[in-house]
């Protein structure tokens, strides 16, 4: 660390405030993400799922819906 001169306290305070503000923001965002994942998992455990998550698999349905060409007798 270089000698920061007579105004070192201002320089260190500026970097300190920046670090604390960014760290607090990052922690809040990460913790919020964890909380939402936990809540979502709890709801899914109770059997409450999104419609798209509980829909039947599509490939078979599309195959079944495809009309088959019949040969002429």
């Amino acid at each position, binding site marked *: *660390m*270089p*000698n*920061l*001169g*007579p*105004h*070192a306290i*201002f*320089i260190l*305070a*500026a*970097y300190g*405030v*920046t670090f604390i*503000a*960014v760290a607090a*923001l*990052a922690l*809040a*965002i*990460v913790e*919020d*993400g964890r909380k*939402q*994942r936990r*809540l*979502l998992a709890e*709801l*899914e455990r*109770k059997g*409450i*799922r*999104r419609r*798209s998550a509980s829909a039947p698999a599509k490939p078979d349905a599309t195959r079944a819906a495809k009309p088959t060409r019949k040969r002429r007798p």
Partner: protein
Amino acid sequence: MVSLANPTRFLGLVDRVVPLLTALTLILLGVGLYLAFFVAPPDYQQGETVRIMFVHVPAAWLAMFGYMLIATAALGTLIWRHPLADVAAKTAAPIGATFCFIALVTGSLWGKPMWGTYWVWDARLTSVLVLFLLYLGLIALWQAIEEPGRAGRAAAILALVGAINIPIIKFSVNWWNTLHQPASIIRLGGPTIDPSMLWPLLVMAIAFTLLFVLLHLLAMRAEILRRRVRALQLTQVERAALVEA
């Protein structure tokens, strides 16, 4: 790009991008701090205090970038009514507000030893304070209205009205006689700052921008999950009401 407008695909992308972006951000922040403290020389007028610039300037840029992102997303909310646009705007507000706060505080900490005061009601400083208040107003508006769609539309209108402040911030140093110095990097005649200080500043600016993007992606992921939780909770209430009926 269109496929990313689907929240589920967007979540998949975020899961893949976040580890790489985290590593890149930490490396660039480390390099930027090394350049700022050990490579950049002291300024011939400001002395060592110039080192505050390496956090103050990127924070001020990102405060404006964050608001422009919100204003652009507000168009997406109002014109296309896309839910991801509202998610992007809502989650950018606290991040932009934090960088705006950092710009104001570090600017004050630079002002005291250089100008002899922490604060003056100068056009640049005042317009940045107005930007911070706009951020707080937007956050309060999103919190005040419970239904996300209505909250998003109301906030989008306020965001677009407030966007007029961005050119005022940028050109305040040209339009008025301010104590704050005029533009020394983004200007027509090229940067007036010496390369020995410009490079550390640019590295820090890129690192801060990556940090903004990383935090924004994480916050967007959390907000999408919050909306899913809300939708499922409403489904749960509806089912309970049907059973009772």
